[in-house]
């Protein structure tokens, strides 16, 4: 295993399009790093540059201590798991797993031992002589994992490996990949557009947009302290609610006076320079309550009368949709509360986020 270091890596295509812009980060040895972002943000391109499947336009890439910019994929000692599995259809599971080792002229006994060991780890013992075409999606992805494991590479690369699986299987595989990471003590770089996968598996998340890194942090820090509105909106499900407005005295006033919140003193200090200026306020759905009886800090809630546009009972929680000015907001509330069409919700005024309206940077 080894660390992976990217120094100001860029990818510029022939037509001048900059897919990845000066990306700079280090993945520590044995770390599980998730690259996340909306489609077209450059995360897959970054991964493919690490794999050697795309040329690096600028910058330096180190795997371990070696500069690998000009190394072809097979010399980088990496293994990759693809979204659509990319198994060789004409080979059995065993042959699929052994193929890379054969090409490296490994002795037969060693190949067999490794393949059997990997098959045991991912529970494929019974399927070794089947062709990929006869396997289910989940089994195929396991074989793809197995093919990566037998190589015992310095770095594992995952390119949206769970996107083609159904929801239930995805949860299972998520757990298995996390388990695998512990068991193999592997360095893993994992690309996904799904923030849930990022939150649940990553030691650290790297969030990208338009080829630029937005923030690198652990999932919890990223959730609690997003650096900008984009990160705040991307991480967390359902996503954060936003409202444009301005600071007047010690109050936040939503646009068109739709909402007025008296700010706790911590925010007043923080926003002292923004008096009279336009800002964006954000609040997570979990910080909006429907019933506040029994809450300890009942005084910090701000009431808002509304009528609900939609109610989604999920069983363990209920989502309430309502309009806040021009914005659709959502609250994540206790499923036991009785919902009537016109009702009051309560916003926790201690759990607000503020962003500059122009730069969208967190304040």
């Amino acid at each position, binding site marked *: 295993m080894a660390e992976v270091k990217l120094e100001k890596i860029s990818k510029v295509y022939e037509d001048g399009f900059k897919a990845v812009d000066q990306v700079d980060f280090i993945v520590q040895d044995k770390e599980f790093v998730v690259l996340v972002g909306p489609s077209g943000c450059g995360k897959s391109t970054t991964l493919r540059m690490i*794999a050697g499947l795309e040329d690096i336009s600028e910058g330096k890439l180190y795997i371990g201590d070696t500069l690998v910019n000009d190394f072809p994929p097979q010399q980088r000692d990496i293994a990759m798991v693809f979204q659509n599995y*990319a198994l060789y259809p*004409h080979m059995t599971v065993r042959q699929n797993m052994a193929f890379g080792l054969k090409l*490296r002229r490994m002795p037969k006994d060693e190949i067999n031992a490794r393949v059997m060991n990997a098959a045991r780890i991912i529970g494929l013992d019974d399927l070794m002589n089947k062709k990929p075409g006869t396997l289910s999606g989940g089994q195929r992805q396991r074989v793809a994992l197995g093919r990566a494991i037998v190589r015992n590479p310095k770095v594992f690369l995952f390119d949206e490996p769970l996107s083609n699986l159904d929801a239930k299987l995805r949860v299972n595989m998520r757990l298995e990949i996390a388990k695998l990471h512990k068991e193999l003590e592997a360095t893993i770089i994992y690309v996904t557009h799904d923030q849930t996968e990022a939150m649940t598996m990553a030691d650290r998340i790297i969030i990208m947009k338009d080829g630029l890194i937005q923030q690198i942090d652990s999932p919890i820090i990223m959730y609690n302290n997003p650096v900008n509105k984009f990160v705040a909106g991307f991480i967390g499900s359902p996503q954060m609610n936003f409202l444009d407005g301005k600071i007047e005295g010690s109050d936040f006033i939503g646009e068109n006076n739709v909402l007025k919140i008296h700010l706790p003193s911590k925010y007043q200090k923080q926003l002292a320079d923004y008096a009279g200026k336009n800002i964006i306020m954000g609040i997570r759905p979990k910080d909006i309550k429907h019933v506040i009886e029994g809450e300890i800090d009942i005084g910090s809630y701000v009431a808002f009368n509304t009528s609900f546009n939609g109610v989604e009972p999920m069983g363990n929680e209920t989502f309430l949709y309502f309009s806040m000015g021009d914005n659709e907001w959502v609250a994540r509330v206790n499923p036991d509360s009785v919902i009537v069409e016109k009702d009051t919700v309560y916003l926790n005024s201690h759990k607000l986020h503020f962003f500059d309206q122009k730069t969208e940077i967190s304040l």
Partner: protein
Amino acid sequence: MFIYPFVWMLSASLAPESELATLTVIPSEITFENYQVLLDKIPIGRALLNSVIVASSVTLGVLVFGSMIGYALSRLEFRGRDTIFYIILFTMTLPFHITLIPNYILMVKFGWVDTYAALIIPYMINAFAIIMFRQYFKSIPQDLIDAAKIDGCGELRIIFQILWPNSIPALVTIGIITFMASWNEVLWPLIVIRDEQLMTMPQLVTLFAVGGRAESQLGVKLASAVLLALPILVAYMFFQKYFIQSMASSGLKE
């Protein structure tokens, strides 16, 4: 209806010469006399061997080079790739007869007249095969090729160990079409081969049947025609499944 001429050809070639005029399908007696005459008059066995050598070599060459060029045109990134593709496409529109004389002059300059080289080498690369392979390879997911690269395959190994086993319908279709075209080719061998020992079957049969050496014996002519058609018929029946499947699925897309 469709099969009647074949049946008649076969049965007539086995019938005595005197019964041919009646066009009957079932001859009164079966005789191999026509074949015997044929074998005595021309080196048809040798011609069969020549045809097999030529058609096989040409087919192999077309498959190997066609897939290599098709792969380069579909998967490798280089300047002028599309221009090259369009030039290759353009050559398909040129009738064979336009290049016939320049090609012949080339053969003379190379000293290849009356050698296998003249029959084989000019046919080893074929625009149709290149285009078919390009289109077929485009339908194979890039991830499969990427996975092979990461596993340690070079480009040639990708073509022959990863793409070929997954392109059987394309290989069979192109193989059959090339083999048949090469097998049936008459004009080019007539021009570059004069030595009877090097003649391909269609060439020899044509010279024999049309050139007058059959001495107007229809039965013998028919016997030579049967021998000419037989290998292709057998091959077609054997590969029919693939042939129809790939004709249906791998036609030119885009």
